[in-house]
């Protein structure tokens, strides 16, 4: 479903990814672990299509399509979803209005009928249960004044509503206490499906106790240096990146 080959990316003229290869099949959950500055967030932004990330070499193929040729909104409409490490606050735009616009944009792309206000509210309430999101937050401005935990729950809530085929979770565990981590992880697990692939990007093994991956990759200095099954995560925790990366 997703094939990344020899990906080289520069940010502000500086090489960050230096020949990254990765293949992800439908239904699989892969984790990418790596130290700070290894290129984890760059990978997630390149997949989602953010400006300022210059691909100098290599390719990304998603469902047989050249992902890099698509605008961010086209990628999202085709089922690519990025759960942000730092969800963006948007004062003046209510969560419910924002998500309705997003859900209907995706439905248009799939050739499905758009939801009206009443249908959407019913739909959104169902989806909010996945992460036990306080319904009051739906009426508030997007992420405005949300706590760290609320922001991350809101990301997974959006993921539940947009039903992506490829979900990229960028350090979804950062800034969460243990209770919030459990709720968010349970939400993610509930969304695992044979039709959906997930790329879980994290610095710490902790998250992978909750979201158990099929494969673990170690990213160091812009390259995958090691891949293995889920036991690799705990091995990393014990031995550190330096040793495995060497």
């Amino acid at each position: 479903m997703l094939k990344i080959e020899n990906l080289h990316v520069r940010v502000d003229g500086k090489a960050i990814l230096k020949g990254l290869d990765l293949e992800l099949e439908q239904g699989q959950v892969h984790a990418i672990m790596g130290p700070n500055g290894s290129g984890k967030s760059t990978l997630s932004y390149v997949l989602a299509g953010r400006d300022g990330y210059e691909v100098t070499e290599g390719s990304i193929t998603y469902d047989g399509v050249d992902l890099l040729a698509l605008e961010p909104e086209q990628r999202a409409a085709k089922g690519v979803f990025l759960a942000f490490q730092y969800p963006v606050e948007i004062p003046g735009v209510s969560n419910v209005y924002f998500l309705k616009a997003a859900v209907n944009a995706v439905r248009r792309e799939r050739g499905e009928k758009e939801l009206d206000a009443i249908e959407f509210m019913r739909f959104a309430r169902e989806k909010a249960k996945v992460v036990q999101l306080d319904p009051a937050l739906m009426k508030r401005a997007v992420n405005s004044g949300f706590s760290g935990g609320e922001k991350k729950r809101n990301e997974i809530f959006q993921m539940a509503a947009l039903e992506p085929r490829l979900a990229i979770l960028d350090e979804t565990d950062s800034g969460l206490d243990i209770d919030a981590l459990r709720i968010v992880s349970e939400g993610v697990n509930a969304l695992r499906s044979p039709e959906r692939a997930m790329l879980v990007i994290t610095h710490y093994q902790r998250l992978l106790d909750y979201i158990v991956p099929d494969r673990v990759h170690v990213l160091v200095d812009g390259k995958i240096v090691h891949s293995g099954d889920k036991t690799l995560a705990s091995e990393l925790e014990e031995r550190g990146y330096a040793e495995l990366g060497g």
Partner: protein
Amino acid sequence: MADGLLSVIPKAAAAGGPGWLSDLRALAITHLEEQGFPGKKNERWRFTSVRDVVDTAFEPDPTTSAAFVDEALGDDGTWRVVLAGGRPLLGDAAPPDGVSVRSLADVLATDPDLLEGHLGAAVATEQFAALNGALFTDGVVVHVAKNADVATPVHLVHVATPGDAPRAVYPRVVLIAEPGSRATVVESFLTAPGGSARHLTNTVAEVSVGANARVEHVRITDGAERSLQLAYLGARLDRDAFYGSRVVALGGALTRLELFVRFEGPGAEVELDGVYHVDDGDHVDHQLRVDHVAGRCTSHVRYRGLLDGRGHAVFNAMGIVHRDAAGSAAHQENRNLLLSDDATIDTKPHLEIDCDDVKASHGSTIGALDAGQLFYLRSRAIPEREARDILTFAFVREILDRIGHASLVARTSEAILARLPHGEALREGLSS
């Protein structure tokens, strides 16, 4: 210049009325004759030229009806009076309980004492306020009774009806809120369809907010292509009073508002909120001044601008805290969203403080849409052009919401969306 605006002045001097009114007119005329009309050297007129206006010989607007208004505004839950040709078209419908709404000409003829100290009191030396002072013959007096709580907004609809030669109206509004009262007054400025020449609406509104009274004053200008709006709004507050001014200015060839507020008793508060949008051919100018004469008063100025096309906006706010006004709080904020490389904003919020015990802040920003927010929306499948409009509208929405009255929030929201490139897509989403 004798052929222009000033050519009508001699006739004005002959107008009747009580002695204090004759004095007021004489003062206005003297001021105009001595000062002339402002040019670029006048600090408050540096960015707005009225040369064109001054050289035009406007005829009085003879219109006596405005049938399009009901359809244009629909049932908005307000009690409306239409002013056509600068005169109110008062029907038989009684105004909401606790408030009287009368023609200024009638009050001057039958009950002039009511106006003494209210009419003319707030008008200092601004030239276009003086022009109105010299030339007004009618307008509206809104009088809110002591302790009355008036829930239904009183809505004055000023209609400009352009003809084939330049026309002008000079209506004057007097709003008196007696102590302890609460009321909302809305002024809408609409332009009738038709006509080929320019139309000048030169208004003065004088607002007196009595002790412990609360007045909400909404002002919406539609900014038609040939519309010239030169307005002065003066508000004076007695102790513990509240005045909320909500201004929405949507373009126009020349739309200028001078909004002067004066705290005359302690413990009062004003919120001066505004939203403006300029595009090709638009010039919108806001000149604010808040005088903290009495102590323990609070002023909040919050204006936000959307600048598109080759539009030009001017914002100038001055807060003055006088020597004896201890415990004052004066805050000014002007934020602008630049949507085009060709739009211009001249913004200058500033404070003059002659007192030590003051909380004050002022600032202005000019920026483009936030790239992070734009990417976040696009990463959720929202097309870029729609994402831009969503963020543009969000920038002013918070201020619009403060208008409070749902039908007016909806009307101004729709009017702004109609001016955004892809606003139609949002309109449906917001109404649901």
